[in-house]
């Protein structure tokens, strides 16, 4: 039974996207992995083809679709086995802050560029001393006449090098309660006082430009406040559900992809006894167990997508899904490598890259420990 009601239009969109990715993205992935970044031009191409911000209104040039379009983009991008072109982060995590909380003027100014790919976005929450604990954010935003002055440093910011717009979480030092002190601001590239730090070297996601960002006396117009002052926490909380759901979609798609490659590998290659690996009992059981886990993940996820689209509060289940499905992807990556034997130890095996790339999933978008904390809290434990 299909839980998600994909229409013909959705299927056409997926087909068109898959073709686009196979001709304009997949052939470049190895080079981008070496370069540690993707060119901005591919973002523009994604925009031109209508693959960015699919849920933004058609008034801003987007396709004005439902969340299923976002799911399709996440799934299809996962099949390219790289995370440099992190369109999901842009379309489904960062831009929704603008879409939901920005003023009409701000939307008119920024959304068309977000949709076309002229403006690549990032969100800057994490700091060297504030990871899971957002109340520990030390970046300050102080009003000075018609301007706001931002000071502080952010780290592990995805799309950090390519970003043209950064949504920065900063606190008003005059407000004591950290939960009431936080606000979100839009900082444009080239604003004096906004500098990029190091492009960080990571285990995986090589083509993804994760970076440090520094704000030193960075002055932005007061009009760049996003939403209401002091509502930063509440806005983050509202949008984190979708961020975690999208992370789950990416992890689920990655697990499905690794299993598909590995199953094919086991069908096509023989074991030490000369028998196809897939005909070996132990390998069969391993593949069946993984396939079962992957199906469980898919069923849970699709149900959550339906509920999320219906506007239901699924914070507990989303936290559960984020932790369980990202752990699933990690586990599948580890077990799939074993089935490739020595080949799995080389980067020529696609699962090797996926093994490195998926390991961040149980950490980002809120660590899996935080997911359990949140679920426990909302379960009334």
């Amino acid at each position, binding site marked *: 039974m299909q839980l998600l009601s994909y229409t013909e239009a959705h299927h056409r969109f997926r087909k068109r996207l898959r073709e686009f990715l196979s001709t304009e993205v997949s052939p470049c992935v190895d080079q981008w992995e070496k370069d540690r970044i993707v060119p901005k031009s591919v973002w523009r191409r994604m925009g031109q083809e209508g693959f960015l911000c699919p849920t933004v209104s058609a008034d801003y040039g987007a396709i004005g679709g439902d969340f299923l379009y976002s799911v399709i983009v996440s799934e299809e991008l996962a099949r390219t086995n790289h995370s440099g072109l992190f369109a999901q982060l842009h379309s489904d995590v960062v831009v929704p802050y603008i879409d939901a909380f920005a003023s009409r003027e701000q939307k008119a100014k920024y959304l068309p560029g977000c949709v076309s790919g002229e403006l690549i976005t990032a969100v800057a929450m*994490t700091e060297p*001393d*504030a*990871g*899971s*604990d957002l*109340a*520990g954010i030390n970046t300050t935003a102080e009003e000075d006449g018609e301007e706001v002055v931002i000071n502080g440093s952010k*780290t*592990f910011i995805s799309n950090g090098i390519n970003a043209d717009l950064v949504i920065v979480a900063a606190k008003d030092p005059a407000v004591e309660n950290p939960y009431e002190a936080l606000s979100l601001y839009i900082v444009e590239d080239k604003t004096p006082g906004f500098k990029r730090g190091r492009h*960080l*070297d*990571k*285990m*995986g996601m090589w083509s993804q430009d994760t970076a440090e960002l520094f704000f030193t006396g960075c002055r932005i117009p007061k009009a760049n406040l996003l939403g209401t002052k002091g509502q930063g926490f509440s806005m983050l909380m509202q949008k984190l559900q979708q961020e975690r759901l999208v992370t789950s979609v990416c992890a689920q798609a990655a697990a499905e992809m690794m299993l598909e490659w590995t199953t094919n590998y086991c069908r096509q*290659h023989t*074991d*030490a*006894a*000369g028998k196809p*690996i897939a005909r070996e009992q*132990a*390998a069969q059981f391993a593949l069946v167990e993984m396939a079962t886990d992957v199906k469980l993940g898919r069923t849970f996820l699709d149900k959550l997508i339906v509920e999320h689209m219906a506007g239901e509060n699924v914070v507990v289940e989303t936290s559960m899904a984020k932790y369980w499905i990202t752990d699933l992807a*990690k586990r599948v990556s*580890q077990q799939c*490598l*074993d*089935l*490739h*034997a*020595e*080949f*799995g*130890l*080389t*980067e*020529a*095996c696609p699962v*090797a890259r996926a*093994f*490195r790339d998926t*390991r*961040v999933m*149980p*950490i*980002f978008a809120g*660590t*899996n*420990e935080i997911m359990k904390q949140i679920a426990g809290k909302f379960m009334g434990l």
Partner: protein
Amino acid sequence: MDFNLSKAQKQIQKAAWEFARGKFDREMILARSLTQSFPRRILEEAGDLGFIGIHFDEAYDGGGLGSLEHVLVSETLCRKDSTLGSALMFAGYGAEFLLRFGDPELCKKHLPSVANGRTISTGAFLENPGHDPGATAATGEKTESGWCINGVKQFVPFADQADFYIVLCRTDSRTSAAKDGLSLFLAEAGRQGIQVNKPCDNLGGRMIGFAEVSFADVHVPHSNMIGTEGTGYSHLQRFLLENRIQIAAMALGTAQGAFDRALAHVRQRRQFGKTLAEFPVTRHKIAEMAARIEGARYLTYCAADGFDQGRATHRDSAMAKLMAARCAMAVTDEAIQLLGGYGYMTEYEVEHFYRDAKHAEIFQGPPGVQKNIIADELIGKPGPGR
């Protein structure tokens, strides 16, 4: 827990740790891992200090000690750094065959320079992933002056740096059991007909680049045969028994090194007004990691000690490798998680311990292979089936 190590054994551990602390520069290691280059100078220094070939006879410039001492050095160096530590320990990979099965002349010729860290040796057995050595296709043909080797070997560690290869070849295709017709040869890197392909881009073990090596009409003298004709398979099995214990030791050190870094991190990192070490779940994670490491250490030391006492079994060595590598995967994985975003960053090191743990888990047979070895010894080999 204490394995009742002798004073001398503890001194070896301490000396290896001091050496690693002094010479294992993090920046150098990270830079070389990226380009897959091995610092031979450090191998020479390790050789000068007696950490290479500690289990070789003294007549060959070795330390005259046993497998357990070798384990202690492997564990300690990998604890300081899993990538460089395992590479240093793999530099004598092929020499193990000489040590155990080679005739004294050949040993005298090659082993001292291995023990001194001047020579890198390797083994060329695999012909495809998960290869059964009994199905070896490479051939060794008798000539007037010696043997002529032909064949292509895959996943040869240190392939582009090795000074000599130990090559498994079929020397008799008429025997009824395929494994009876195999022999091992030493082929020096300079011999005509040896071609090393570009090393693979490794997931882990990035200082022991694998490569394909092809042997086309490579001539070696009679004296380069290891042991006698037809003993290749059984020697390889005996080598693997000992080598699995060493891989277990590397995995153990890898786990311990990641644990050390995770423990230091949770003690110092503050979130929500306290250190991570104060959170109950963190404490349980640390406890679980420590318990796994102690279990792996016990199996590894026992297997090595058994080997030294002449009680070596395939079962013990496969159990040590299975459980130490599993421990290394679980501990390095949890270490990354405890470090959070930092754990995923190259400069915080635990990410390469995780990749190196996976390398140890798959190299010389993934978990399924180890379980087959254990089960074959516990139950007996399965019948041919229908």
